[in-house]
């Protein structure tokens, strides 16, 4: 519906979070790099994952306490996850927020996503004997 597409949310309501999650994961599944990784991690029905992510963002943005889980453990079990993928994830997330939300709300969501992504990267890839942040190949001299 074009009317629904043009909606711009300015508070993190249930509707706003549901739209974000649906739209964002549609982009993830269509992405050439992230799509296959998610498809392996979630081979069947995406309904439960989308519900989990609605609860997660509700907890993070509205302190609703609806999500209780261990995302570090979940991500550590994902096959084929690479540190550069977090930037790609964040770019898709930012684009989705920009399309759906008024700028201040989009910035609020993105700021949370950046911090959470950084902590997941640290949890999954940090080793005491190598520098942090890890240089991406294009930056390495």
């Amino acid at each position, binding site marked *: 519906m074009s009317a629904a597409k043009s909606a711009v949310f300015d508070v993190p309501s249930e509707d706003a979070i549901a739209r974000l999650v649906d739209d964002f994961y549609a982009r993830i599944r269509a992405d050439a790099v992230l799509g296959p990784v998610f498809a392996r991690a979630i081979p069947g029905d995406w309904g439960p994952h989308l519900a989990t992510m609605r609860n997660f963002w509700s907890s993070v943005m509205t302190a609703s306490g609806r999500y209780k889980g*261990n*995302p570090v453990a979940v991500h550590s079990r994902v096959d084929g996850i690479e540190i550069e993928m977090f930037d790609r994830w964040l770019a898709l997330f930012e684009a989705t927020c920009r399309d759906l939300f008024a700028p201040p709300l989009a910035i609020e969501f993105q700021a949370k996503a950046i*911090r959470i992504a950084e*902590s997941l990267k640290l949890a999954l890839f940090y080793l005491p004997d190598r520098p942090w942040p890890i240089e991406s190949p294009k930056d390495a001299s």
Partner: protein
Amino acid sequence: MTFVVTDNCIKCKYMDCVEVCPVDCFYEGDNMLVIHPDECIDCGVCEPECPASAIVADTEPGLDKWLKLNGDYAKVWPNITVKRDAPPDAKDWDGVPEKYEKFFSPEPGQGD
């Protein structure tokens, strides 16, 4: 990066934080809580919930002692995910300086 619980939690222990934490990373001592640095995802939801403003981002300076204390006791104290009543005199202790030096207890709390 993580958030850490600092001095003003001691003897206040309001526990509002544990209800909102999406990843259940609070651990309970006898008279304060700590955050497990390896489990915290830095979402920051707990920070404004603390009535004693005892939770701070670890990017603030001068937190070495608290980073170590949170990391050390998170490994030995029990997990707490459900809020109980704060101590009846919690309000009286809010803002009292140097509570760590005078009152910190290494004993575990009851947990969930």
